[in-house]
């Protein structure tokens, strides 16, 4: 039997009652298509992760899990949030490729094949869906999300942050390894960047139907802030280097100012008026600058320690041997 690649699908569930059955149907159709095509790819498992859902999603999912061997339902002990729920699902997965999908049909399964083809053709390990227009249909929400990501790209120098999206296709071993090193405050996608830089996005016409219809996503403002905080804490902010540069600049400014004040005192004694001011300003600038430089140094060491504690690996090895067969199948379907 030819080498067959298995895809695992993870769906965090919070308030997806209106959508889960339709989502299941679409995924079942995809599974059937691959079986009928005898594709080198199969949909091995669909893992719903119940994040203490607030509606009757679980009542709808339970019969699906009971009647289909490939459908599973995990229950979290409390509402942990979408990222932890995704990570729980990922850590229970076995597929060589893993994809996380939102519960509300914002992420149609029809896009899975194009995302996978992009990953394989460009030797990527993570492909995000990139909405062609603001996915939430609300200017304020879309703008703030986009603005924050751009700010983080500036602060960290990591362009991949702009790609982050909950509709993500990942190589299984990378997804599971990233999830296994994540702590409670780690932003999962940042952890992914520790294992691979092979990331890109595929522009897709995706839309947050629920938010656009005014139903709300289940994300309160407070939760969004917590989300942003996690991203801030997980990403390696290069600001401390800017702090070090500032400290050095102040130091040299202090040295130059000292020289100016000294020369002035020699040429025109008493020209600065009040006694003690020149020595005070020189001391303040030089000692202040030294403190800033030392602070930057401490932050740099702390950053290294934190990254080590968070589990950032020194190296990671992956297996691409199944890729050629998949590329051949997917290209044939999309030529």
């Amino acid at each position: 039997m030819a080498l067959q690649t298995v895809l695992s699908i993870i769906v965090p569930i919070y308030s997806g009652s209106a959508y889960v059955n339709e989502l299941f149907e679409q995924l079942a159709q995809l599974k059937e298509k691959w079986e009928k095509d005898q594709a080198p790819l199969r949909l091995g498992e669909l893992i719903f992760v119940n994040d203490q859902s607030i509606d009757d999603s679980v009542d709808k999912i339970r019969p699906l899990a009971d009647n289909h061997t490939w459908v599973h339902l995990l229950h979290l002990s409390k509402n942990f949030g979408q990222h932890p729920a995704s990570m729980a699902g990922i850590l229970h997965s076995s597929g060589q490729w893993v994809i996380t999908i939102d519960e509300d049909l914002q992420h149609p399964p029809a896009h899975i094949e194009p995302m996978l083809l992009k990953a394989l053709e460009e030797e990527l390990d993570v492909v995000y869906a990139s909405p062609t227009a603001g996915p939430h249909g609300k200017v304020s929400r879309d703008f703030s999300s986009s603005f924050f990501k751009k700010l983080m790209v500036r602060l960290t120098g990591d362009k991949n942050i702009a790609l982050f999206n909950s509709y993500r296709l990942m190589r299984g071993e990378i997804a599971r390894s990233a999830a296994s090193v994540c702590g409670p405050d780690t932003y999962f996608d940042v952890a992914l960047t520790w294992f691979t830089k092979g990331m890109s996005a595929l522009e897709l016409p995706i839309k947050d139907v629920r938010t656009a219809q005014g139903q709300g996503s289940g994300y309160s403002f407070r939760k969004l802030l917590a989300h942003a905080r996690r991203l801030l804490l997980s990403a390696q902010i290069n600001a401390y280097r800017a702090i070090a540069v500032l400290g050095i600049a102040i130091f040299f400014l202090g040295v130059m100012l000292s020289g100016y004040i000294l020369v002035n005192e020699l040429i025109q004694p008493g020209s600065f008026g009040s006694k003690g001011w020149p020595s005070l300003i020189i001391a303040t600038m030089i000692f202040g600058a030294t403190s800033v430089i030392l602070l930057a140094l401490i932050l740099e060491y702390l950053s290294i320690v934190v990254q080590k504690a968070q589990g950032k690996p020194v190296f990671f090895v992956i297996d691409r041997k199944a890729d050629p067969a998949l590329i051949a199948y997917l290209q044939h379907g999309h030529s």
Partner: protein
Amino acid sequence: MVILERQQQQQALLIFGLGLIGSSIKNALHADQCHHFPFSWENTTQQSEELSNIGKFLEEHANLPHVEVIWTAGKGGFSSPDHAFASEYQALEQVLHWTKNLRKTRPVNFHLFSSAGGLFEGQILVDQDSTPQPLRPYGHWKMKQERLAMDLLENSMLHIYRPSTVYGYQAGARTGLIANLLQKGKSNTFVEIFASKSALRDYIYVEDIAQFLVHQLENNTPAKPTQIHFLVSGKSSNILEICQLASEILNKPILSSYRLNLENTADNTFSPKLKPSGLFTRSLMEGMKGMVGEV
């Protein structure tokens, strides 16, 4: 081997093989009495005599009419060559014939411990429809043992247990990856791992297996067809995850390297739906914390 007496249940439990699983089962059973009997694993002639002595013991203990024979023997390991399994197979055959004869005089159940990892090596999302396709002598011999047991014993008396990757610690028993990590981690010694960081395995704690067997013995209803039980957790973990957990539990880094042994890089996972009712599996964190004091 040992014979355990459970007088309230009127059971005599014969455990062949006191490695990791056998010892754990013995401890979990809380027997009223425990009797050690010699069993010559390599000498079939001697085995006949020894089994005869065991038979006499059972005859003398008419107050224990129900006999449960538990085979957890397994000298050959995952990487052992073919010839390491022959004597074990012959010993099993001898015991199976003896058990079949014993069945003529009293109710007897046979519990055979096989190996899901050996039978389904390299397969992922193994479920009820999956077919065993062993890749190495260990798996082939386990499959042969299962077939032998099914051929020699009537369906109503045979239970086959297929544990995934069992972890735990027993002094003198073979040390698996997790016990090795904890041991070496505690002593700040370097550990070489013969697999890749991302290799997926299903790990089950040995005490969970023992508890399940106790549950089986207490709820066993005869006259059922041969039952095959997959003792799996249904949640696979990669080696990186295990090293992280070990590091967290010991509060120090694990000094390790990865030897890319190509035989051990394939993933092997099981559907959580294979778990039998009555099997409760604890998390890796809990299991490893339970072991750390013992290793």
